[in-house]
Each structure stands twice: as C-alpha cells, then as structure tokens.
C-alpha cells in the first residue's frame, strides 16, 4: 500500500543525470617573455555609478581560453554615514568581490572571504596615494570591484611553483579602479596602473622537466597562470608612471635580494614596472575615449545644425 502522506519516489527507479564535462581550458599560443597581452578597457559602463570601467585580458581572447574580466564602479564623493567620525579627508573604501561563477569548477560563496579582504586592503593602499583626499572633506569614496572571470581559477600554491592568478587579479583591479576613479572626475595626482612580472623556469623543449640541471629562470612580463612553466617567484606593483612612484609591492616565492648577492628582486620589480608602464598607456587612452567621443559629437552638433547622431 502506498504512503499517501508524502511524495514518493518513482517505483521503478531512475538513472543519475550525466552532465557533459567542463571542457578543459585550451593552451594559449606561446608568447615571448617580454610580450604583453592586449587589454580591453572601457569606462562609463555602469549607469548608476559616478564612474565605472570594465577590463578584459587578453583581448581578443580565443574561444575557450582563460580570461581575466573585471568591473569597477566608483561612488562618491558622498556624505559619510552619521556614525562616522569627522574627517577632513575623503575616506576611501575599496571592496573586491569574486563573482560566484568567476572560478571554473568551483563556485565561490557570497560572503567575503579572507582572500577578498586581503586584496581589498591592498587595492585600497595602492589607490589612496593617488587620490587627492584632502579636496573632499567629510565624504566617502567607495570603489567596488567585481571579478567576473579569473583566468582559470586560484588553486593556491602547489608544488609547481607560486600561483600568479591572484596577482593578475590585483594588478587588473588596480588598473580598472584607477580608470573608474578618473571617469568619476575625482581629483587625483596620477593614475595608478598594475603590473605583474614573474621568474619562470620553462622546461627545455623535448627535455624532461625533472632534469638534473634545470634551466635558469627568466623574467616573464605579464605572466598568465595558463602559460605553463614553473613560476619560481612573482611580483605585482601598483605604479604611478607620471611621478615614478610605486604605491604597492607584493612578492611571492623565493628570491635573492641585493644584500644576499642576487638581483632577482630588482629584476622582478623592474619587470613589473615595465608592465605597469605599458598598461598605463592603455589606461590613458581609455579614460580619454569618452571625452573625445563627446567632443566629436558636440562638434558634429555645431556643424550639422542640430542633426545629431543617435547614440
């Protein structure tokens, strides 16, 4: 006799659903160690925000290859909540969040975790030196970064060397946030761009990776976790190219400093700064783009006697 009080399962049983496997990310075509990936950066894409930007790396990305996608939105300067103490400067808060779908194979939670908190603080430190906070007393500037896609995941350090995914996220976030701050019209002394460099040991072609005499690691600019090779150490900088100032430095892995008789730290920093300087050129063009468009449009309006292209 069937139980009428509950919903019974089918009497004849079912087979478990078989999902198609997640396709493995394709390997990117190899790059020269000093070749940078192309960046897509566009501003003013989030209508309610005072300023916003979107960054994609690399662009154009071949289908199926891992990409880094970030959005930044800036709100403010807006009044602080009544509970906040008096502050003669603007209070900058940066919040970095990974979208739940940003890492393949693993869903991320909605609650802020330690990684996000750490990156938020680093991002805030990198940006606060560039913004003229004294010009905005008693107000708050809030920066929100959402990571939509982060290059095939952040699996943490494994035996294969240090992991550069998080560093790429931070460098991208710095660039993206700075573009959004400039788009918001907030006064800043310079734009900050992020750059990553790593010492990568690549297995010789055809040779065994576990060979006795390993090849010397080379400095790779803008390394991608999908590139392959063993990353010995890596550095990310936040760099203000206009004033030649480093606002943030984060290193991972083992490296020799100058007082240990090596120059690996210097090599990494120089590499990261070279990357950041190149990124700055993209950043400059991206923040100009909207205004140039506006100027061209208003010229068209003057010449065309009211006939305007619809946007």
């Amino acid at each position, binding site marked *: 006799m069937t139980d009428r009080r509950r919903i019974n399962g089918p009497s004849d049983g079912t087979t478990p659903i078989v999902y198609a496997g997640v396709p493995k990310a394709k390997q990117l075509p190899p790059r020269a160690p000093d070749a940078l990936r192309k960046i897509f950066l566009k501003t*003013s894409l989030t*209508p309610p925000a*005072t300023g916003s930007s979107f960054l994609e790396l690399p662009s154009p990305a071949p289908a199926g290859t891992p990409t880094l996608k970030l959005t930044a939105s800036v709100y403010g*300067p*807006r*009044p*602080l909540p*009544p509970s*906040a*103490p*008096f*502050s003669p400067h603007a209070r900058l808060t940066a919040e970095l969040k990974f979208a739940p779908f940003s890492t393949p194979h693993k869903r991320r939670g909605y609650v802020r975790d330690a990684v996000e908190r750490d990156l938020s603080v680093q991002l805030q430190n990198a940006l606060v030196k*560039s913004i*003229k906070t004294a010009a*905005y*007393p*008693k*107000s708050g500037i809030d920066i929100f970064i959402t990571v939509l896609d982060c290059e095939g995941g952040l699996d943490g350090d494994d035996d294969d060397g240090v992991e550069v995914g998080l560093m790429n996220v931070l460098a991208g976030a710095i660039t993206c946030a700075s573009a959004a701050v*400039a*788009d*918001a*019209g*907030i*006064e*800043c*002394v*310079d*734009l900050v761009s992020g750059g990553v460099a790593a010492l990568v040991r690549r297995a010789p072609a055809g040779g065994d990776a576990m060979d006795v005499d390993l090849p010397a690691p080379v400095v790779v600019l803008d390394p991608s976790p999908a590139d392959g090779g063993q990353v010995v150490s890596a550095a990310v900088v936040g760099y*203000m*190219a*206009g*004033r030649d100032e480093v606002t943030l430095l984060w290193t991972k892995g083992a490296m020799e400093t100058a007082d240990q008789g090596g120059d690996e730290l210097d090599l990494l920093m120089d590499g990261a700064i070279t990357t950041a300087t190149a990124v700055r050129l993209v950043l*400059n063009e991206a*923040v*100009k783009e*909207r*205004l*140039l*468009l*506006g*100027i061209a*449009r*208003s010229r068209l*309006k003057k010449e065309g006697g009211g006939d*305007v292209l619809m*946007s």
Partner: protein
Amino acid sequence: MSMPEFPEIATPGQPLAPVASYTLGTGVHIFNDRICASVVGQPSLSAPTTKSESKQILSVLRPSQSGSSGKQGDVALTNLLPQVGNNVLARVTRINPRQATVGIFVVGDTVCNDEFQGIIRQQDVRATEKDKVKIFSSFRPGDIVRAQVISLGDQSNYYLSTASNSLGVVVAHSGRVPLHLDVLATFCCLLTAL
C-alpha cells in the same frame, strides 16, 4: 577652448606648463615645479580675475555639454561638495527650538547626487535680533530654503546661515494660513526671490 600648446584631453598626472607661467585654476595641481592635470578633461585658459594679476588661469575642465558622456547630470562632477561660502538650496527635514535640520540638494548651480545634511542654528537664521528668533515660526518641515554654508560643521552636518536679504525660505507649503503669513512676514525678501 583649448590652446594649441596643450593636449586636447589631459589625463591626471600629465604635466601641462611650468609653475611660473599660469595661475592655478580648478582640476590642476603642482608637482616638480610643473602644473599637472588632476582630472581627465580639456585644458583651458581664462582671463585673470583681478586687475593686479597678469597671469592667465589654467584649469582642466570636464566638458559638461549634454551628450559628452553617456550619463545625465554630468555637470555635477565639477563641484561636488558644499564648501564654505557656497549658496545652497536645502529642504527642511525636521525642526526643534534650537535649530532646523535640512538636506542640501543643490550646491551653487549644480544638483547633488546625494543629499548632504545641514543645520541652521537659531542664531544663524537672521542678522538682527538673533535672540528673538523662533525656529518654529521661521521654518516648517518641507520648506525649501536658500542658504549659505558658513562652516563644514561637525561630523555629519554642514552649518548654514540665512542671515542675508537674498537668503531664506523660497518655497513653503501652508497647512494653516496664519503660519504661512508669519513666514512671509519674517522673510519679506521671499517675494523677490520667487
């Protein structure tokens, strides 16, 4: 109008001119003895404000024409916060015998994105007979007040004053006629302001 020597659009940190050549306007700062841009915008020169000053003023302005960017209200980006001396429009939110709390929604000529809280204290309502001022007969919640910022104030409030002929309640909705008349009697300048 941008001068030929300047880039069409300047980006933050971009050096524009030596310090000695111009007076600083808005959107610029000094770094390494050079005037640098602080915002993304068009460099522009304007005539000196005083006769004694011979140098032109160099500013970097964000274009505020409609259609300059995809969003509306772009003009608000030049002057975002109330500053001491600014004329503002504010809406009275609550009153007590000592002060009226208001929300500032227009600073100068620009509409703010966010409302800033301000207070008008009893002694700042008018210039004369300050001790006889009654807040209850001067303001009512919902009134629109033209006022001047006199101080950045404390943590949450800007301090405002209406002690001038050109300042005071400019829009008031009456529940009872006598109170409305009282407001009119206190601020006769209303008739010209409206």
